[in-house]
């Protein structure tokens, strides 16, 4: 499975003598300079330099376990901020805390769901915004793709540990791969399907989205993404979207449209998002119809079985009560639905059924829904 992540590495395209020279120079530098990142001093200094270029975001959320906080990166002196396109932006009261503790209102300039990013702007109607610390995203986008094995630093306000002038949390890790993202958020396929850096550290925590990863010298590499599940392994994936990211998607008429992070950054208010697509759900089909979920803890009794469905083939019957799925207890219909939502088609699950006074174990292979959305 791991093999899926490896590929599409960008080899250097320079002539061989130039590469030799570069290699030699690198070796010499290794010897002559103290290794950056290996002495505490330089890393602490990098952290100090990067922190003022990031902002804490506070917006919508705070219910159903959804965080109401996030992170963003300042990309211009007049207060443009890049972050992840998330639910926290769905508010008219979006607030930004700068590194010095000042608090500002911000508005969403443009969003690009296909890239899963959004551009914000600090409100400057009351006073002029002039920021001293920001990243040059255009330059970051031109940087060659970092190779697997590159040591990185991550910066974000994960778990909302910091407010006001308290600094971002910094972590360290290694780029494990540069590969296409195949993630999902709950039952929905992740909107961005392009290339990402896959990281060996747990960077994608609540609130970390919109934070950044940098080299150990503090050079901007990529934007930390959401808390996604890898479709291939059903495990959490820690990834970051490079600033060179672009995707090509079909519009209504089937014509191909390419959008990129740089388009959004350059066009700002004039940016037009890629045409909307039908959301592809990757919900697994089992063919079990449960009794109506009327009371708070309705037991998961089967009302009906869809003919020809996996449930039908597994010989499930009305009035069977589902008590365990893969060894996990099913207290009620809600817990059954929640659990099943985490499975992908093709997975074989083990149901334990109470039928009369007998407990029966039934294997069932989940399928793609008959009317799956078009890719």
């Amino acid at each position, binding site marked *: 499975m791991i093999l899926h992540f490896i590929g599409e590495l960008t080899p250097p395209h320079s002539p061989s003598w130039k590469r030799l020279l570069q290699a030699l120079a690198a070796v010499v530098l290794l*010897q002559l300079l103290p290794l950056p990142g290996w002495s505490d001093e330089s890393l602490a200094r990098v952290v100090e330099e990067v922190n003022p270029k990031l902002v804490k975001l506070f917006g919508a959320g705070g219910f159903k376990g959804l965080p109401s906080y996030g992170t963003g990166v300042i990309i211009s002196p007049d207060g443009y901020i890049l972050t992840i396109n998330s639910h926290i932006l769905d508010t008219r009261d979006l607030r930004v805390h700068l590194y010095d503790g*000042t608090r500002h209102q911000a508005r969403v300039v443009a969003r690009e769901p296909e890239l899963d990013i959004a551009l914000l702007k600090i409100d400057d109607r009351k006073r002029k915004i002039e920021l001293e610390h920001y990243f040059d995203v255009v330059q970051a986008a031109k940087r060659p793709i970092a190779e697997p094995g590159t040591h990185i630093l991550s910066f974000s306000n994960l778990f909302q*540990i910091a407010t006001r002038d308290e600094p971002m*949390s910094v972590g360290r890790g290694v780029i494990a791969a540069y590969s296409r993202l195949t993630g999902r958020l709950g039952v929905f396929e992740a909107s961005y399907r392009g290339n990402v850096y896959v990281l060996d550290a747990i960077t994608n925590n609540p609130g970390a989205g919109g934070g950044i990863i940098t080299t150990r010298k503090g050079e901007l590499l990529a934007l930390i993404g959401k808390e996604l599940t890898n479709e291939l392994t059903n495990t*959490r994936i820690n990834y970051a979207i490079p600033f060179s990211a672009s995707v090509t998607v079909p519009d209504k008429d089937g014509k191909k449209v390419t959008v990129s992070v740089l388009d959004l950054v350059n066009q700002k208010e004039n940016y037009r998002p890629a045409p909307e697509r039908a959301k592809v759900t990757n919900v697994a089909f089992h063919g079990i119809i449960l009794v109506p979920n009327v009371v708070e803890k309705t037991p998961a009794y089967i009302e009906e079985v869809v003919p020809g469905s996996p449930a039908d083939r597994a010989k499930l019957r009305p009035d069977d009560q589902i008590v365990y799925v893969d060894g996990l207890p099913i207290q009620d219909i809600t817990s059954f639905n929640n659990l099943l939502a985490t499975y992908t088609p093709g997975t074989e699950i083990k149901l334990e059924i109470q039928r009369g006074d007998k407990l029966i174990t039934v294997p069932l292979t989940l399928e793609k829904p008959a009317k799956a959305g078009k890719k």
Partner: protein
Amino acid sequence: MLHRFLQALFVTTLALLPAYAQGLPAKVAEIEKKRIDVINKVKPSVVAVMARDLRGNLTGNGSGVLIDEEGYALTNWHVTNAARSPLLKCGLPDGLIYDAVLVGLDRVGDVALIKLLPRKPGDKFPYAKMGDSDKVKAGDWSLAMGNPFSLATDLTPTVTFGLVSGVHRYQYPAGTLLEYTDCIQVDTSINPGNSGGPLFNLDGELIGINGRISLERRGRVNVGVGYAISINQIKNFMGHLRVGLDTDHASLGASMESESEDGGLSRIVVKSLIESDARRRGLDVGDELVSFAGRPMTTVNQYKNVLGLYPKGWRVPLVYRREGERKEILVRLMGVQRGVINENGRPSPPPMPPSKGPRPPVPAGPPSPAAKFYKEKEGFVNYYFNEEAQKRVLADLARLGDFSKLTGDWKLDMNVRLLDRGTPVATRASFTISETSGTEGKLPKITAEINELPYTLEPLKTDEKEEAFKDPVNSGGWLLATYLYRQLLVYGPKGFPGKDTFWHGGVEPYYPPSDPQKGETSRERVLAEVLLTRFADKDSRWYFAQEDDPAGRWKKGQLIGFEVYAEKDRDPCEVCLSHYKDFGGRQLPSRWFIRHADNNYADCVLTAVSCK
């Protein structure tokens, strides 16, 4: 030119080849070796703490770290709390099991001090040197050591290596009062069982005690966010922990709120205030908090961080601003409401592994030899250590002279400069203390003549006037203070009859009289051991020097000041003592400085003493 450059490069490269042949650049190899050396150096100090219930069943495993050669070790309260007994078993990396006893607790701060017993009397323990956690920066490397998932079946600690992610972090109490203030955030892997273990910097100095991790939907495992209690915070509590106290954290008696408009920096403003020392010192609702204990205040988290650093009863400077005017005050911190954390109050999350799987072998045997180092007393974690500390302080006091036979009349004469009026008044004061035996035991009486005015106090007379306890006016109770001073010297603990009337209160800051030339801003602070006493409902605190004063005002072990509360929850009469001199073969302080509330009252020189 290019050719020569390339040649030079080539030569340099050749020189490097041996290092590369071994797989690592020399610099990296050197750094790696240094790290391994540090790990090997500190490893012997890492403790595996085994929590057992009263029947000896293992109820959890944690970690700890030795901090001196006597065997004192730090761990988390929630580790020792898993044991239902103050007697513990600990393992060291030498592969041996040691008996240990609980000494002191800071439940709110999640810290416990334990003491390991040497296997042979007199044996010394390896220990970790404490660092300065205020010097730790985000981006520094750190090493966590301990016993995660109870893996250390051979008692060799696990080492993890990572980055400091943030410093001065505040973590809200999780369901209980247990809060992590001013803590160090690390991405160094900390897991269940690491609790109580050390966090080291790359110089091998102890900078924190690992105790808590952020969790989210992924079960009780590390998600890249762990927290260590900063060692500087623990240092403030150490004096309390060492004397067997169940220490309390502090509150100011005020709540703060962050007040700001968009665009501006936040101001921290007093939102509400209860009857407290802060209020008596003049703090009021609406005042802007500028700095607290020397730290600038810009967020409520920072305010809470500072509060968490100090035990209840400590006095710290506070600067506030009102209508543009900046004022500095010294406030005594109050305790946090108690009773919320009880024995069943589980900190959340408690990173303790279930006691499954392989366990370090602990032979069942006779009762723990640690039992003789444990004495139960209500309100104390381990009264044995408090008694020992009392004995030590009283022995120091006895070295100044034996006063125990001098139960007769005492007469003290002083030259006095009264400071409570516009211009200081030079005058004299004379105190006479006597005890007459009445039908209900001894009846003490103190008479004084201060600035030619007579005063009398009979502290045990049932109908004695409230004002008499506070005489002279503005002193807060100088007569009472002088009487209690004699009481301590003559009778020691027996001079304070009743239940829970005499104990060692750990270590507190003491502020000697400030130099009038330099003013309040040059506030000097020394740490002093404190004895707490109660006499006929009057509380007192007695401060003893931990070190010789470089300026020569006092020596280690001398009583350098005391406070007497004539009235509960009011300002005490503070007596600062210095410049000990020989008076008839006994050492007494020749300089007495009296303060009360916000004012200096009198500066005195003891001229003659007669003790019978």
